[in-house]
């Protein structure tokens, strides 16, 4: 490895502009004549719209236009769709209700958009929005998925009787039932995976620009996948054909999944720009973000895990009810099915698994992928169950896991996934050694002398990343392929631009992708620019989510680099009168192996562009593109251990240590990987200890609509993390990368909850383990 190549902790190139406040985000964009939008939103969780009266608002100062859903429908702008078809176990397709970008018949959650006001200033737009009179016929609301399935509850969509979207299953029910019947021991538990708000630092924003001279649209937006946004807006929402719609996602300040989806605001601002004749910018405020960004998780599951007399798992049966909110968001159907139940084998060899998943409409904001997306839910379920089983069976939780680990690869689980490589015991042992697991009893006794209750817990997670093989996901219902594309453009002086369909919104691609190029060509990373986030600059792409940019996005760059190198070698061989097979690329030079003949990289690039002396028949230029479609998912895995002290007087949990031992395959930049793990663990600890979206069950009002009530993790809530890697290279992609973006958020919640329940001796605790809940559980246990 060179100082800037693969494996080097190179400082992030993009940080100079971020840390000096010079990032360029959507809200920083300004174009001549630009005006400001404010959305009129439903204050009710469920209501019929009787009328919308804009007469007073239209005459307010600065108002340019006020538009409502009827006009949107008249202009044939499409309804918002879910892009992944799931069929119920009876073979029927999912029951998708209508999601209008601007509701004009029914509103179904607090924050549902009803009208857009465009005005000279944001303040004037907001003033006028307050003067729009919407007459609502308020209906009863239901916010909890389990309740929404019960008879007599409010019905959200006529397409979905009993609010049931689909009733899906995976695995072998009969074999699983038999395993449970034959079991020496069955561990049963009911678990709730709490609902989270994603909270990227940058709230969503969009700027819609219609150019009447060209009949062309430009959309600046906070997106993790601008090409997908363009595709969906063209193909499904009828905004404009793709060649007349440019989507730009400039600097984006965090996404965590919530910026994958195409929301009403992008569509409406583009349309409103044409209707009003002015560019229209909308920027979400924080409460609007709580109300309208797609939330994550919100599962209730019952679990039965069957063991034989030797404590081997012989069956796992899961029944899950997942809340999808008021409408089906873009990938909402995939999250509690193929991103969740396919991971229910965990790190364990389980011969029989069956999962049943019902997804449900409720009067809450849509739920979709949030960092981990299905895999945290699977891991939480499995790892709390394993810990519970170990306690019931009276065996060490480490030993129970060790005994059931998958040890030979490839390993075909009963739930689709084929694990390609891993060494679960290596991470378990590394984590236990790092945490001094064996010294815990002494530490617990010492804490007890101070009046504190100390506990320790572990979690062994696996995730499926690098999503995904296109044909495989297509056969499971995905509406898109999940390959990635790249183009490597060598300029005439040898500097390089890499156009990638991956999108960086905090991941550091401008550094890591450049490191890959530097490693291959031996050029400084300063001579490599990574271009992303603009459909006019980058040929095509599927974006960044599911820890896919390294495994899939970089693999596309590798394929393009292969082609660039091959052509460069041909040119160099021709110029140095050598055989092409003798040319090697090292330290920014092309050399004839075994001789002192060399050509600097830039000279070969220049030769490609001057084209004065190229091999016969060769095209000028040095630019190559590639599409990479993965052959399998990747399977990062690891073991997390958390040790806590609980103050029995207050119920406050203090995290004493947090150990993460991960297998991410090969690593491009260890520092950036550490940062990803740190952030992921912080979000996982947030879920386990602090964060919870709370809707008033009576009226569907969002109680946690600001940081006054939604508890985000802060630096002083977190310990220093102890990290290590036990990497087994991924065999299915050229770089051996597995991905690291979601692991921290996936592996950490059960480790923390297992530690707290160990400390307090009450296993009924639910996330988030707030001081109040821990105190109550502690008193209930005693």
């Amino acid at each position: 490895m060179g100082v800037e190549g693969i494996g080097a902790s190179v400082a992030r190139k993009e940080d100079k502009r971020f840390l000096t406040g010079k990032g360029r985000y959507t809200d920083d964009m300004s174009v001549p004549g630009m005006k400001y939008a404010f959305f009129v939103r439903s204050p009710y969780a469920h209501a019929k719209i009787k009328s919308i009266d804009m007469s007073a608002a239209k005459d307010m100062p600065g108002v340019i236009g006020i538009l409502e859903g009827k006009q949107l429908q008249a202009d044939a702008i499409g309804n918002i769709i879910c892009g992944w078809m799931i069929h119920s176990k009876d073979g029927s397709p999912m029951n998708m209700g209508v999601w209008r970008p601007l509701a004009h018949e029914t509103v179904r959650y607090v924050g549902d958009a009803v009208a857009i006001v465009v005005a000279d200033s944001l303040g004037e737009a907001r003033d006028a929005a307050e003067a729009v009179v919407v007459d609502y016929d308020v209906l009863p609301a239901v916010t909890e998925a389990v309740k929404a399935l019960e008879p007599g509850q409010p019905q959200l969509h006529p397409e979905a009787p009993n609010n049931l979207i689909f009733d899906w299953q995976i695995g072998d029910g009969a074999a699983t039932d038999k395993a449970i019947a034959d079991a020496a021991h069955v561990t049963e538990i009911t678990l709730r995976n709490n609902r989270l708000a994603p909270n990227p630092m940058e709230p969503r924003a969009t700027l819609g620009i219609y150019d009447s001279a060209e009949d062309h649209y430009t959309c600046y937006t906070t997106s993790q996948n601008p090409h997908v946004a363009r595709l969906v807006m063209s193909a499904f929402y009828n905004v404009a054909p793709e060649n007349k719609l440019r989507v730009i996602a400039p600097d984006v300040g965090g996404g965590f999944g919530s910026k994958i989806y195409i929301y009403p605001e992008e569509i409406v601002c583009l349309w409103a720009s044409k209707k009003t004749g002015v560019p229209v910018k909308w920027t979400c405020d924080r409460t609007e973000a709580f109300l309208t960004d797609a939330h994550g998780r919100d599962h209730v599951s019952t679990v039965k895990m069957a063991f034989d007399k030797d404590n081997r798992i012989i069956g796992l049966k899961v029944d899950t009810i997942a809340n999808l909110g008021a409408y089906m968001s873009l990938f909402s159907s995939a999250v509690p099915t193929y991103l969740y139940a396919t991971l229910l084998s965990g790190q364990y060899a389980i011969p029989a698994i069956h999962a049943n998943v019902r997804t449900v409409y409720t009067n809450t904001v849509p739920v979709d992928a949030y960092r981990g997306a299905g895999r945290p839910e699977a891991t939480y379920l499995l790892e709390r169950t394993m810990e519970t089983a170990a306690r019931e069976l009276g065996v060490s939780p480490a030993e129970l896991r060790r005994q059931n680990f998958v040890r030979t690869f490839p390993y075909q689980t009963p739930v689709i996934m084929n694990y390609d490589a891993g060494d679960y015991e290596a991470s378990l042992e590394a984590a236990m050694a790092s945490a001094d697991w064996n010294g815990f009893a002494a530490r617990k006794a010492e804490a007890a002398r101070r009046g504190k209750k100390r506990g320790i817990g572990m979690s062994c997670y696996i995730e499926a990343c690098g999503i995904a093989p296109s044909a495989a996901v297509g056969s499971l219902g995905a509406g898109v392929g999940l390959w990635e594309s790249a183009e490597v453009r060598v300029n005439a002086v040898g500097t390089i631009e890499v156009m990638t369909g991956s999108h960086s919104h905090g991941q550091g691609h401008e550094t890591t992708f450049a490191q890959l190029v530097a490693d291959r060509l031996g050029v400084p990373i300063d001579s490599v620019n990574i271009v992303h986030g603009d459909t006019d600059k980058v040929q095509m792409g599927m974006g960044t989510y599911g820890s896919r940019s390294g495994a899939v996005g970089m693999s596309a760059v590798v394929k393009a680099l292969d082609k660039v190198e091959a052509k460069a070698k041909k040119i160099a061989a021709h110029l140095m009168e050598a055989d092409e097979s003798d040319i090697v690329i090292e330290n920014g030079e092309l050399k004839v192996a075994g001789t002192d003949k060399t050509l600097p990289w830039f000279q070969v690039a220049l030769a490609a562009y001057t084209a004065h002396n190229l091999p016969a028949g060769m095209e000028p230029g040095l630019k190559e593109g590639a599409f990479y479609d993965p052959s399998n998912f990747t399977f990062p895995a690891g073991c997390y251990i958390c040790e806590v002290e609980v103050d029995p007087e207050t119920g406050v949990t203090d995290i004493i240590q947090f150990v993460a031992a991960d297998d991410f395959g090969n690593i491009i930049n260890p520092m950036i990987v550490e940062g990803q793990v740190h952030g992921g663990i912080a979000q996982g600890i947030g879920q386990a200890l602090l964060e919870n979206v709370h809707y008033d069950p009576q009226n569907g009002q969002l109680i946690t609509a600001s940081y006054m009530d939604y508890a985000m993790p802060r630096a002083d809530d977190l310990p220093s993390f102890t990290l290590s890697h036990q990497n087994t290279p991924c065999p299915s992609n050229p770089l051996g990368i597995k991905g690291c973006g979601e692991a921290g958020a996936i592996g950490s919640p059960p480790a923390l909850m297992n530690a707290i329940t160990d400390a307090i001796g009450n296993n009924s605790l639910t996330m988030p383990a707030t001081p109040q809940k821990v105190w109550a559980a502690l008193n209930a246990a005693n």
Partner: protein
Amino acid sequence: MYATNYHRASSVQDAVKLQAGADEGKYLSGGMTLIATMKQRLASPSDLVDLRHIPDLKGISGNGKSVRIGAAVTHFDVASSAELKAVCPAICDLAHHIGDPHVRHMGTIGGSVANNDPAADYPAALLALDAIVVTNAREIKAADFFTGLFETALEDGEMIVAITFDAPQRAAYAKFRNPASRYAMTGVFVARRDNGDVRVAVTGAGADGVFRHSGMEATLAANWSPDALAGIAVDPSNLMADIHASSEYRANLVKVMAKRAVAAS
């Protein structure tokens, strides 16, 4: 935020006149609650009269026994005042744990006291220290000043000029923060005077705002030690309940924070 007129008052008289002359004038003294509320469009005063630059409202003075804190003194200045530390370190410690550094450099004691947020820290200190709220018109004992949630004895147009109190023999404040907002979910200020009088004032927990707990006061007057509170039962019936803390949990916190305050005093 709706449009509003901003005035910077140069004197107490000037401020009173500006406020009286406005349609719906509001005093601004840091604005750590008011500005946020206005930005949410939940408050819309026609005029803001900024008190932070009035010389008479600034400064901390004392004679080693009694103390006067100007209403426009920031939390940071209270936290870092050597004069206050010498006579009542508990109030410095309290101020040091309000909000974050930005808030502590903008927010003022007068603003906080006038707002009487049920989760604010200062009301507990004032009540426990038997402080006097000095206004442009009169002097009001803390016990008479805080009248309910966000309610005070201040008349329309009346403004706080200073807070005064006598140094306690021992005092301390223990706060349990709300996990989200980090306001006091329960805060207890304990103080004992030279004459043996004890006051225990609780903020963040009472359904009607700050209150004194007479049972703990009597117990501590007899025996100033954390262990003395072991047998005390705090009645949850008049305590707040919300998604973060039930009234039973708050009742527990009142007792635990009182014990910790006594231990720290």
